[in-house]
């Protein structure tokens, strides 16, 4: 077996660090399978605290991966979150890269 065969085509440096963090990966996964969701849904699905979730969402928003829409429903604040097309592409790319690395690692 040649040494080149054991060397992955994609290096770990190419892995998106924003998505790679476990909490954000979980958020991205659940947003990927829906069109949009509210804040309560993500609290429930990810098991993160509200403060922690807000911080991660801010980070994802700063990178253009999610879009956050704040509104009031019957005078109660309601936050809607959806993955942007950039976020969707980034998640798909992340999946491909991780699978590729795992498949090529001996």
């Amino acid at each position: 077996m040649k040494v080149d065969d054991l060397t992955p085509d994609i290096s770990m440096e190419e892995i998106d660090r924003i998505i790679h963090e476990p909490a954000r990966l979980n958020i991205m996964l659940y947003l990927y399978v829906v069109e949009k969701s509210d804040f309560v849904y993500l609290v429930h699905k990810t098991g993160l605290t509200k403060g922690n979730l807000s911080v991660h969402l801010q980070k994802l928003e700063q990178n253009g991966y999610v879009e956050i829409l704040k509104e009031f429903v019957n005078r109660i604040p309601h936050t809607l979150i959806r993955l942007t097309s950039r976020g969707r592409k980034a998640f798909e790319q992340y999946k491909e890269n991780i699978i590729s690395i795992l498949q090529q690692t001996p």
Partner: protein
Amino acid sequence: MKDDLVRRAEQDVLNEQNLSDVIQQIVTGALLSISSLTWLLTDLEIGFPLLIIVPIIPFIVKQLRKRITYPRIGYAKIKDKSTDITIVMIVAGLLLFFAFSSYTFNLGIVPRSLLTDAWLVTFVAFIYLVLMIIGYLKRKHIIFLLYGGFAILFTSAVWIFKLSINMKLMFSCYLVLAVITLIHGIFTLRAFIRKYPVLIDES
């Protein structure tokens, strides 16, 4: 081809958003109870109360979910609409079937034999069974198999015990099943409310 993780997450979201609160089950149980009671007490055709209530079921379910489900487990707009479209098409088909059978029967165009009702039940149960199989294949949730089993049991009972000859008995069985569905739904909803407290959006 979707990978397992994404497919599992999709099933998880679909099941939780549509099944965990059992509101659909409660509304269906209530509708079936009203239909069978109406028939037993007033001799109205079964299609009549169904025709009035069915179009507003999605609205009732949505309003109940806004009050009960979404403040607890959150709201997610699901991408996959194929199941909803299938259900709408089948419900529309059933409505047409009920309307047509009631209309022709009332005008005396189609004479009603003793077996007509048994075939009607079989037809409805078959459609229902197909829906449940599709639901199970898509979402892998045991409730679809249970409902499918109920449909087979009920249809078998109609044929084996010739329930269609005694319509009162048939609709009494129908009522019992509907009440069991309703009571089970109410208890499950109670457990759901206790399990998931209301969460406040503090983003």
